């Protein structure tokens, strides 16, 4: 175990808690910056998708993981962002401005969805957001004059101050920058009163309220911020995919987003990233492996669903804290190496209580 000798309150609010953190995160950054020279084009594209999904993941993590509000319609925000970006850049708006507008529009929509969230919880909130997702999808499909309807629309390459981002590498760097900014923003929020208010609402609404936390304000704020991040991710997604159609933002996409943070680890910023890595690499891994499997299995349609579902079940069963939780255990194990005792991480019996009374 590493012991950090604390001498100063400021230590607790620093982002990097000790030298080790600093070292490893710098190394990671370095690796990410060098990625275009290290990885083949295909993998760089995957990495770009990972970054994009991480941004969306951060958003839904903020909402579900830290504020405890589960949204089953988050793909709608992704869609709003993507379409806003597509339409605005098409009308010649420069990329940064369009991105800001996409984020703003998503946030505004998030605000509207946040309103029912003030009155309903749990499953009801899930259904409200689910319904909202369906409605947005329908609007995107029906509002043909703007969205091109179900035929979908193409998106131009992003232009930054008259400079067109032609290559995958350039776009990768753009995503990397946005991701870093988004991550820092979230980390800052979490160590400040706003973030604490979110977490308080997650744990107990009644005491949060009695501590003077304005539930309505913070819930809508959480919805908006989360939607804004999803909107940014959607905008980048639109550029990366170059073609968007309403059904890309359907319920399955929403569930994917939720799965992402569950598998990554609900309630940790790391989880959003690990989940995104998982979500993107999993289908690739299956696609790579299936050519080596016996025909009856490898080529069978549905294999992906089975693997996907099995992995999800396995995570919930064996690692409810997600990938990040697993990593924490591995790390603790390594740090304590000779002194590790069995049963240390043994799951305690726990007992469910109605969440209708929260």
């Amino acid at each position, binding site marked *: 175990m590493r012991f950090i000798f604390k001498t100063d309150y400021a230590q607790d609010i620093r982002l990097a808690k000790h030298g080790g953190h600093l070292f490893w995160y710098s190394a990671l950054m370095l690796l990410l910056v060098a990625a275009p020279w290290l990885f*083949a*084009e*295909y993998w760089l*594209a*995957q990495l770009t*998708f990972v970054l994009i999904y991480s941004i969306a993941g951060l958003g839904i993590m903020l909402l579900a993981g830290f504020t405890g509000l589960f949204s089953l319609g988050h793909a709608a925000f992704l869609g709003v962002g993507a379409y806003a970006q597509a339409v605005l850049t098409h009308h010649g708006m420069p990329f940064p401005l369009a991105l800001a507008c996409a984020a703003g529009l998503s946030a505004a929509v998030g605000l509207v969805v946040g309103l029912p969230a003030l009155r309903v919880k749990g499953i009801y909130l899930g259904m409200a957001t689910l319904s909202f997702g369906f409605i947005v999808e*329908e609007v995107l*499909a*029906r509002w043909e004059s703007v969205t091109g*309807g*179900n*035929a*979908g629309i*193409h998106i131009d390459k992003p232009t930054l101050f008259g400079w067109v981002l032609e290559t995958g590498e350039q776009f990768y760097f753009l995503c990397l920058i946005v991701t870093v900014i988004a991550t820092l923003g979230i980390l800052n929020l979490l160590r400040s009163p706003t973030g604490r208010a979110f977490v308080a609402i997650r744990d107990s609404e009644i005491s949060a309220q009695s501590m003077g936390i304005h539930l309505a304000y913070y819930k809508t704020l959480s919805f908006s911020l989360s939607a804004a991040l999803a909107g940014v991710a959607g905008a980048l997604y639109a550029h990366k*995919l*170059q*073609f*968007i*159609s309403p*059904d*890309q933002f359907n319920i*399955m*996409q929403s569930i994917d987003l939720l799965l992402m943070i569950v598998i990554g680890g609900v309630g940790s910023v790391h989880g959003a990233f690990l989940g995104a890595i998982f979500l*993107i690499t999993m*289908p*690739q891994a299956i*696609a790579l492996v299936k*050519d080596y499997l016996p025909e009856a299995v490898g*080529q069978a*349609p*549905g294999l*992906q*669903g089975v693997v996907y579902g099995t992995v999800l079940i396995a995570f919930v069963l064996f690692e409810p804290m997600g990938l990040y939780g697993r990593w924490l255990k591995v790390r603790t194990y390594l740090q304590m190496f000779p002194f590790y005792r069995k049963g240390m991480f043994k799951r305690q019996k726990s007992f469910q209580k109605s969440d209708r009374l929260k």
Partner: protein
Amino acid sequence: QQGISKDEILLGSIQDLSGPIAGFGKQARLGMLLAVDEINEQGGINGRKVKLLVEDSAYDPKKAVLAAQKLVNQDKIFMMVGHIGTAQNMAAMPVQFEKNVINFFPITAAREMYEPFHKLKYSYAAPYYDQMRLAVPKLVKEKGAKKVCTLYQDDDFGLEVLKGGEDGLKTIGMEFAEKTSYKRGATDFSSQVSKMQASGCDFIVLGTIIRETIGAIGTARKLGYSPTFIGSSAAYTDLIHKLGGPAMNGLYATMTVQNPYTDEQAPAIRFWANKYKTKFNEDPTVFSVYGYSIVNTFATVAGKAGKSLSTDSFIKVMDSLNIPSDIFGSAPQSFSATKRLGSSASRISQITDGKWKVVSEYVGDPALKK
């Protein structure tokens, strides 16, 4: 040249193997495999064996892009053949075009598969738009219908049918008396059918695929409502009469190649169908034929392009190609440097006694489109 090695040509395809039209995707894949095996048994193309990699898109554009990226950038395929689905193709094409990979004969009859022009686009399927534009007025006149209505799937596919029907009716000075739609996956069509019944429609253009076609017609039959129904080639599948039973008799659909029944009259088709059935232990469908023909056409062209096969040499051969009608009765096709749709002609077929029967000659001038 990407995807071509000394003794192998690598092809990629993306099918819906687990989504809503997985039934089609699976058949198309098997048809392709049959063709690939035949080609390889005969020594390949100019000494190169064909290898086909198939990915699953589950009818999801995003997955299609990921699959295309894998095929194009990771596996480095030479060409994308028979990719199913309109939106999926739309999403995947940019990835392919960036790497100069041809989108060869996608399995969807949307006009976007050859328009706007791109040198890497080739389409063989008579567009839904043209199918309906030509077939609807013809049949309306034949039937002497007074009021024409439509029920379409509210997505890009359904819209093509709608627009084709609209433009076709315009040529005979009519328009849709009632337009109704549904969302993909819908199971209840009672209010749409009632609406059309209430407005007295006696001719209905269906922009539907499988279950929706059956569901809509079934609903109408139960309401004692029996107008003339016509669907597009998307509804031209043996599943319609197999699932829908006798209620489906009388349905018209536009089509190009015939469904290969294993007890078909024409011996060539029967032979082929039984070969397929022996190999895969499943009845072939019209989608098997699509897959089979696509790969065979590829092989013909690639064979002509010679040993130094490359994207450019392939395009060169392709752009002066004339394909005659095949055993399945496809319309003759021709391509040029500016004409990337083989043929816009289709014919009309009807279900009688639980089987599709061709009831018309090809309508539409193959040379009509540029």
